């Protein structure tokens, strides 16, 4: 029985993740590659005439390569045709990283699929623990709840950001991110599973608490990235997360209930 549930969740996650991964490659990755041209650059001074324009990719690429000594000479142009600078992250520069082009695309789709599998397993697990089965009637609602708890609520404090945007300490952000998911999930559980009217007050307190506490977020005022690029990225990322969660809920509804007559 455990094996069947795990298999059902893994299959649902793979299906949702592959679709999401392909959309991510087409709609999100080009924005990340465009942003990497600005990585390692200082924020542009107030002279907007000198600020890199989105269409001015050739000079941007040169500037970025000069500004970021860690930039390797990978050929981004295979993927987008307009990017040439590599990421100069603060991580160990000698560590393995996927080659630009096919390998990077492969690993991005693979990891997106794996994270969807992880989310699908967690959602299925929680449905058994909370005694609220995921059915063909409520699969999409489960997906929406997953989106609210894991994607939307954390994004209020820590919006999805492109590479190169100044950010607070990674461990603090991860702790706040995880804590916000727990609090929001608990709030949803209270509203759905409890019956006293006070549950709304307690749920609201849990949902709001992480935001009152405050996310470890640095206002992005000093970023060299064009605001339009950042806002487009945040919007598409959140939209894509919604698609992923809806697909996870929808596919789980079918893989966990293969026949309408005998769901177990």
């Amino acid at each position, binding site marked *: 029985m455990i094996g069947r*549930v795990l298999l059902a969740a893994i299959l649902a996650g793979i299906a949702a993740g592959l679709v999401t991964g392909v959309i991510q490659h087409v709609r999100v990755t080009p924005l*990340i590659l465009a942003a990497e041209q600005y990585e390692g650059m200082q924020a542009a001074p107030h002279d907007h005439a000198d600020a890199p324009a989105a269409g001015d990719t050739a000079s941007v690429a040169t500037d970025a390569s000069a500004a970021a000594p860690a930039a390797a000479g990978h050929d981004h142009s295979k993927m987008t045709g307009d990017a040439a600078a590599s990421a100069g992250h603060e991580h160990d520069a000698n560590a393995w990283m996927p080659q630009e082009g096919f390998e990077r695309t492969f*690993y991005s789709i693979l990891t997106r699929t794996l994270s969807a599998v992880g989310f699908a*397993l*967690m959602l299925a697990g929680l449905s058994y623990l909370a005694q609220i089965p995921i059915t063909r009637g409520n699969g999409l609602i489960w997906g929406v709840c997953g989106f609210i708890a894991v994607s939307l609520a954390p994004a209020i404090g820590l919006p999805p950001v492109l590479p190169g945007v100044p950010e607070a300490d990674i461990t603090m952000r991860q702790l706040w*991110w995880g804590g916000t998911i727990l609090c929001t999930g608990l709030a949803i559980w209270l509203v759905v599973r409890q019956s006293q009217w006070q549950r709304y007050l307690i749920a609201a307190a849990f949902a709001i608490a992480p935001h009152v506490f405050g996310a470890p977020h640095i206002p992005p005022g000093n970023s060299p990235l064009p605001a339009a690029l950042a806002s487009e990225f945040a919007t598409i990322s959140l939209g894509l997360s919604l698609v992923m969660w809806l697909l996870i809920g929808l596919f789980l509804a079918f893989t966990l209930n293969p026949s309408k007559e005998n769901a177990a």
Partner: protein
Amino acid sequence: MTTAVQSRTLSISQRIAIGMSALFLGSFIVFGTGLAQDARLHNAAHDTRHATGFPCH
């Protein structure tokens, strides 16, 4: 209804065993793809971490 079948045929201990194993396996995978700070895992999952909204470097 599918709703009834699932809860009727499982004991509480079965349900907890299923729920905990799925939750732990899922958490492990999500941690590996989204949160682990190992440089190789980070590099492989870099674009996905940004696109999913995981806190990333």
